[in-house]
């Protein structure tokens, strides 16, 4: 009979354990997981890149929902286990679900340590532990106000760097004299502090927090010496402690963590524990490598497989802050029986220290250049006698025994069992073996097949060198990021070749540019379709099958498969008649939600696809056209009431907004374009965070561009000041046309501008009247073919097939 395995916790350790378990004995257990977090298993180490914006949450998911379904695992999301009944062998969640078990695994992880000072519970005080914390920080960061991070350890510094990256003014408070004192000696701690400060983060060491102050919410942090540092966000990252309360309540033996033997067995033979909550051999662990080792051991125990035992080993520490290279391993305290070798290069910001005992490495600290970390780790693990190479040891592997200083040679010289990826315990031989056996050609392949470089990513350089070493010339480390897997060409090359070779259809592009697939994929086809629409407006026939569904049916798909509809309201201005028409449509089609959007429009949500043409027909009768709220195209021009009504207004901002919108609607662009016109520098239309904005002043119109207020927040850059409305329109249109012709598909204006440079854009659009005029005219030409209302086209019968099922079957039988 299938045994019941219940797991409390769904972090990285139990996730890895299940992978091993399913590989060894897929049918032995019926598995049920209770996860206190309302989500699937994700890579917690990568929260820092999510915070800094280098990654999205979706990119760090380890097991998606499909994985649990495929393996028949029951996952209770958002269920916290509140009690274990060891006699009845059941667990009960806070939602009242009770599940019985034959074997129970506790993997409750750790909880952040909160220093017990007054004010610790004020709103605005966060810890840094899970995705909810990151989301709360991102929300707080939108204010771009002041943040204080308490704790100058690994987690605290990563949080500080992320918040700084998100535009906050960040101060790190650390109670010890130097940063990361548990992993770094004072010299490296000092260099780290300089590197952190160079990024604009303030660091205060020997800073002892007395209280968190504020009335109803955080306003600042008070230190023992009376200093008050103002802050609207306080992140406590002073450490973690094993989350062992549940085990303790159940009467299991608990010390610092849940006490387990070297096979992950607790004091109850039916219960195991692993991960950060477990204490083995007197140690608790917080880094991923030993936790994954526990997972291996636990899986072997559950399958009664090989007798695996957990053995303590030192894990290297690396900081995941882009641009700061830091590596620390083992024991580096001074001692009478210890010697050390040190290399300092002040101008290059490099510090290396190797600590020796009996001619063997016992500890290493590297700062500024960490490439030799794996090699030092290998020497330490194997307890190699280094007396022969003592004179050159500190210079690294490249300087040993006549090996050239080529970094490739250094990697080549590593033994096959040398560890490359510390997080996942992948050695060199496994990676090179997989490259050869499975014909892997790139980093993503290696990640998928071996997991090397798939967790924290700090060994990416080494893995790339292994690829180069194994594949030789065949490995091209993607100097240009290809558009997608269908081609090796990048977006810029494809755009250039479309023009140069006069390619005017998608099949022509795929043929001439040697696409590797027969008809592309969902990444390249929409891009190619846009490039052709933009470059050959009068000749290219838009390929609807290469458009994303929203642009194919001219509405926004929602999570339940229904659509939302947003009619255009020029400049955000509407009327009684229009509002009445909308109200009638809402009633007639029983539309469940009506909402005002951020772009001054009205959104009707929850419309069935079949109803779309009829909805549009009614809206069309009231004079509405599509608002293109679904398009990579001109979305909205938001306005304030300007000189018509406002006592501060300097120009007719509403009129200009409507004029721009009527001129530019219908145009397709690489990514969505949102605009705004404000009538005075008070900027009520929020023009300074738009793709293109206008701020009216007494002397004319200040043209802004390259702002962002979504995934990134960025104020606009000023393109220049023009005197008349006509000039403003010409400059804006020319700017958008330049963007249309040059940007990569899905690249917003601010990203394109960063790549091309503001100076170059100013030169072409403001300084060169002839170029500006040419851009303007090309836009006007393309509008002749673009300004067709897609809704009225569909009301007249275009693409009928999109909106109705081809058949209905089986209903009669069901009624019987």
């Amino acid at each position: 009979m299938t045994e019941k395995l219940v797991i409390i916790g769904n972090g990285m350790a139990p996730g890895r354990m299940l992978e091993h378990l399913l590989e060894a004995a897929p049918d032995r257990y019926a598995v049920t997981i209770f996860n206190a977090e309302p989500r699937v298993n994700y890579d917690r180490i990568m929260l820092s890149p999510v915070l800094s914006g280098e990654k999205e949450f979706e990119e760090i998911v380890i097991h998606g929902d499909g994985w649990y379904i495929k393996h028949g695992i029951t996952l209770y999301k958002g269920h916290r286990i509140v009690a274990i009944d060891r006699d009845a062998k059941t667990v009960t969640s806070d939602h009242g679900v009770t599940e019985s078990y034959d074997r129970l695994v506790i993997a409750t992880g750790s909880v952040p340590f909160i220093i017990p000072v007054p004010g610790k519970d004020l709103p605005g005080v966060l810890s840094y532990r899970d995705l909810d914390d990151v989301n709360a920080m991102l929300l707080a960061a939108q204010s771009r106000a002041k943040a204080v991070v308490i704790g100058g350890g690994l987690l605290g510094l990563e949080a500080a760097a992320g918040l700084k990256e998100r535009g906050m003014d960040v101060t790190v408070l650390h109670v010890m004299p130097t940063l990361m004192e548990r992993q770094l000696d004072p010299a490296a701690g000092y260099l780290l502090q300089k590197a952190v400060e160079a990024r604009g983060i303030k660091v205060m060491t020997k800073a002892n927090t007395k209280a968190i102050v504020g009335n109803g919410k955080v306003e600042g942090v008070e230190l023992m010496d009376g200093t008050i540092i103002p802050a609207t966000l306080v992140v406590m990252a002073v450490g973690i402690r094993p989350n062992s309360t549940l085990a303790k309540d159940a009467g299991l033996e608990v010390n610092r963590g849940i006490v387990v033997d070297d096979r992950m067995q607790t004091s109850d033979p039916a219960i195991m524990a692993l991960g950060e909550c477990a204490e083995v051999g007197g140690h608790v662990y917080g880094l991923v490598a030993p936790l994954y080792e526990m997972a291996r051991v636990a899986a072997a125990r559950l399958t009664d497989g090989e007798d695996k035992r957990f053995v303590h080993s030192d894990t290297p520490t690396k900081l995941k802050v882009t641009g700061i290279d830091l590596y620390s391993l083992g024991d580096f305290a001074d001692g009478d029986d210890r010697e050390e070798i040190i290399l300092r290069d002040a101008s290059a910001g490099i510090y290396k220290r190797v600590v020796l005992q009996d001619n063997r490495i016992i500890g290493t600290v590297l700062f500024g250049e960490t490439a030799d970390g794996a090699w030092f780790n290998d020497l330490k693990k194997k307890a190699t006698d280094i007396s022969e190479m003592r004179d050159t040891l500190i210079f690294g592997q490249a300087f040993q025994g006549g090996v050239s200083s080529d970094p490739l040679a250094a990697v080549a010289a590593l033994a096959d069992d040398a560890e490359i990826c510390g997080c996942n315990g992948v050695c060199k031989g496994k990676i090179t073996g997989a490259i050869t056996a499975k014909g892997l050609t790139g980093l993503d392949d290696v990640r998928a097949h071996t997991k090397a470089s798939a967790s924290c990513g700090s060994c990416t350089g080494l893995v790339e060198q292994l690829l180069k070493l194994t594949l030789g010339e065949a490995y091209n480390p993607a100097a240009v990021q290809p558009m997608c897997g269908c081609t090796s060409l990048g977006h810029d090359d494809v755009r250039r070749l479309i023009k140069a070779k006069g390619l005017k259809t998608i099949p022509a592009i795929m043929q001439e540019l040697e696409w590797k697939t027969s008809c592309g994929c969902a990444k390249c086809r929409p891009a190619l379709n846009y490039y052709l629409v933009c470059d050959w407006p009068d000749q290219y026939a838009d390929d609807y099958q290469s458009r994303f569904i929203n642009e194919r049916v001219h509405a926004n798909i929602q999570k339940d498969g229904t659509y939302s509809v947003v009619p255009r309201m020029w400049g955000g201005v509407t009327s009684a008649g229009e509002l009445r028409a909308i109200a009638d449509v809402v009633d007639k089609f029983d539309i469940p939600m009506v909402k005002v959007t951020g772009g001054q429009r009205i959104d009707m949500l929850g419309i069935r696809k079949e109803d779309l043409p009829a909805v549009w027909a009614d809206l069309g009768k009231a004079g509405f056209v599509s608002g293109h709220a679904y398009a990579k195209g001109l979305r909205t021009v938001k306005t304030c009431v300007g000189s018509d009504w406002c006592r501060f207004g300097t120009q007719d901002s509403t009129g200009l907004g409507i004029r721009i919108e009527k001129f530019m609607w219908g145009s397709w662009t690489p990514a969505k374009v949102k605009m705004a016109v404000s009538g005075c520098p008070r900027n009520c239309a929020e023009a300074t965070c738009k793709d293109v904005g206008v701020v009216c002043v007494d002397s004319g119109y200040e043209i802004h561009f390259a702002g962002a207020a979504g995934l990134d927040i960025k104020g606009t850059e000023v393109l220049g000041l023009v005197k008349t409305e006509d000039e403003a329109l010409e400059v804006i249109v020319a700017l958008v046309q330049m963007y249309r012709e040059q940007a990569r598909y899905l690249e917003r204006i601010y990203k394109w501008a960063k790549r091309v440079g503001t100076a170059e854009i100013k030169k072409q659009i403001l300084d060169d009247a002839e170029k500006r005029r040419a851009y303007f005219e090309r836009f006007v030409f393309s509008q002749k073919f673009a300004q067709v209302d897609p809704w009225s086209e569909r009301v007249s019968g275009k693409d009928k097939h999109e909106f109705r099922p081809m058949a209905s079957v089986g209903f009669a039988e069901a009624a019987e």
Partner: protein
Amino acid sequence: MTWIAIGSVTDIPPRGARCVATPQGKIAVFRTADDQVYAIDDHCPHKGGPLSQGIVHGAAVTCPLHNWVISLETGKALGADEGSVRTIPVKVEGERLFIALEALASKAA
């Protein structure tokens, strides 16, 4: 096995899909660039996205909600994602299209 007529191949645009409504939910019927026809449940194994609305490339479709790529031949998610959706037998006679009914009934059972 009972075959039910659902229309003609030309009802579906090449590299496109149409839906067939059934009491157990919608079935998505796809036509590839080379006129192969496939039918699968119109329900992505990830979050239930309507696969019939996705972009069709080769013998696969990309879900419009979160870009999972589903094989039309096997119903399985391609790439690193894991999951699968039911496939339904399709028969083409001339231009006429049929899907198998028994496969439909088996889901209800």
